[in-house]
């Protein structure tokens, strides 16, 4: 299995499309940081709005941690697209290239090949989210320094001490990876249906858009289904900045997301094991 995974990772990281996501991250994050640097403290002041009149703010709140959180919030909508770009190509790409005929005639079960591909997809997803973490926090620390974390959410303000920053961000990015694995699993499933990578990307984004609409529209007809949609729990990483941490909510969201990933992986396995390779 290790050998299979090694070559799946090798194939994944030898393709140029794998680096599109990293390239976007490497361009967008420095650009945002540079913009914020030019803006100075005005950005935080604008965000805090009238709260400034009620509180006496001291110390550096315009720091790497606050900015990383802002970047994560704004990039979060776009990350699924970057993930489906690679995850959607994992099986469909082999079909397009005709290489299923090279690998599936070998004395290795299809389940093992699929599992190696799935593991490589999850590793890619984690590496992209970690690249966002490293870029935004690393570059942020260099440009803005450290300080307490300012969390602005839904009109409420939370300030977390600097000493908690590493733990909070480690938790946030771990939850972000967990959540993005659902997107990767969805694109991976769609990838098993077709013979080109465009279909899985469009289908994944289509499902996300529909689910997001249903998740975010507070219409009573959708109320019963909302807790079961993965998009309702997709921003679970934001709960890493709540004070105090609500572990039961985090566990519930992780449960729903984990169930989605497992179900999607099992569906892909069932399809792939019986699929006729005609390409």
């Amino acid at each position: 299995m290790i050998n299979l995974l090694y070559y799946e990772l090798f194939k994944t990281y030898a393709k140029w499309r794998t680096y599109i996501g990293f390239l976007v991250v490497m361009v967008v994050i420095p650009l945002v940081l540079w913009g914020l640097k030019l803006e100075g403290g005005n950005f935080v002041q604008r965000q805090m709005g009238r709260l400034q009149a009620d509180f006496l703010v001291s110390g550096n709140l315009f720091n790497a941690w606050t900015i990383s959180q802002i970047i994560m919030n704004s990039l979060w909508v776009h990350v699924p697209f970057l993930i489906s770009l690679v995850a959607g190509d994992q099986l469909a790409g082999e079909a397009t290239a005709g290489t299923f005929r090279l690998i599936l005639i070998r004395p290795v079960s299809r389940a093992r090949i699929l599992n190696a591909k799935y593991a490589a997809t999850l590793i890619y997803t984690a590496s992209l989210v970690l690249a966002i973490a490293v870029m935004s926090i690393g570059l942020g620390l260099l440009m803005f320094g450290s300080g307490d974390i300012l969390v602005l959410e839904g009109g409420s303000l939370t300030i977390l001490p600097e000493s908690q920053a590493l733990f909070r961000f480690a938790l946030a990015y771990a939850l972000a990876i967990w959540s993005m694995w659902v997107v990767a699993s969805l694109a991976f499933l769609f990838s098993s249906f077709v013979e080109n990578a465009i279909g899985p990307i469009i289908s994944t984004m289509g499902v996300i858009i529909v689910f997001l609409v249903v998740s975010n529209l507070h219409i009573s007809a959708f109320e019963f289904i909302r807790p079961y949609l993965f998009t309702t729990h997709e921003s679970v990483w934001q709960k890493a900045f709540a004070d105090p941490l609500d572990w039961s909510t985090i566990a519930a969201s992780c449960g729903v997301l984990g169930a989605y990933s497992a179900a999607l992986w099992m569906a892909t396995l069932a399809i792939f094991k019986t699929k006729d390779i005609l390409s």
Partner: protein
Amino acid sequence: MSSEIVLRTIGLGKSYRGRRVVQDLNLEVRRGDVFGFLGPNGAGKSTTIRMILSLITPLTGSVEIFGQDLHRNRERALASVAGIVEKPDFYLYLSAVRNMQIAGSLTLRRTPKKEKIDVCLGLVGLSDRAGDRVKTYSHGMKQRLGIAQALLCDPELIILDEPTNGLDPQGMKEVRELVHHLATEKGITVFLSSHLLNEVEQVATRMAIINKGNLIVQGSVDELLRSNANTVVVNVTPQKKALLLLQKMRSASVVETAEQGIRVEIDQKRIPAMVAALVESGCQVHAVIPEKSLERYFLSMTEQS
């Protein structure tokens, strides 16, 4: 030739959207065979090969390789098998060596040794380009790389689906020689699908012909062609006079006249009498050539079906 059966299909069948593309196919390939698998385009050859290599699931029947049922014991059945299905496709963005490593590791469960890869690439004349990305390869080079990756794990059975497709005459000759070398020098059983009859005639020891998904005939190439040996080409002058005489003969039946002579269907025992009659009538008989053409045989069998 050994009588051990290395590949057997039993009542193999497949349908697509209600259309039967392979029906009740029973093939037997023996150890040491170069088994020619013939059929016109769309006869079901590739579908059969895909079923044999577990790329598609049969609707009916089963496949046994080295005595192992492919469905129940896939990994053991395919352990000593290699193949190229239709055209050889590779990871174009990787080098030949990387492609060989990927393909080999799936069979060997470890990365194949560099020396072994070098030997296989050398055998097909690709040593100089081993480090180049496969996207820079010509079709013929990819075909040769396909054979190299098939040889990497020392298979006992190689399944080649139209291996000379798209090759120039020199490339076709090289592949034919390679197939002959694998069978005679290395003792590998070769299952060779083709619609190029000349190719199969030159290398195959046994063959099967399928048409519209049905098996038409199967057996030793020599025996099958011998059954067609009642046709001879009579090279005779003057041709017109000889033609009139042959048309009058009860024992012979003129099929057609051609540049090289008159094609006649006749019982072998009656050939001396036919020659004597021609000579007595003043014709000069230069040659009587028994026709042993796979092409004629193939056409007669597929037309009958």
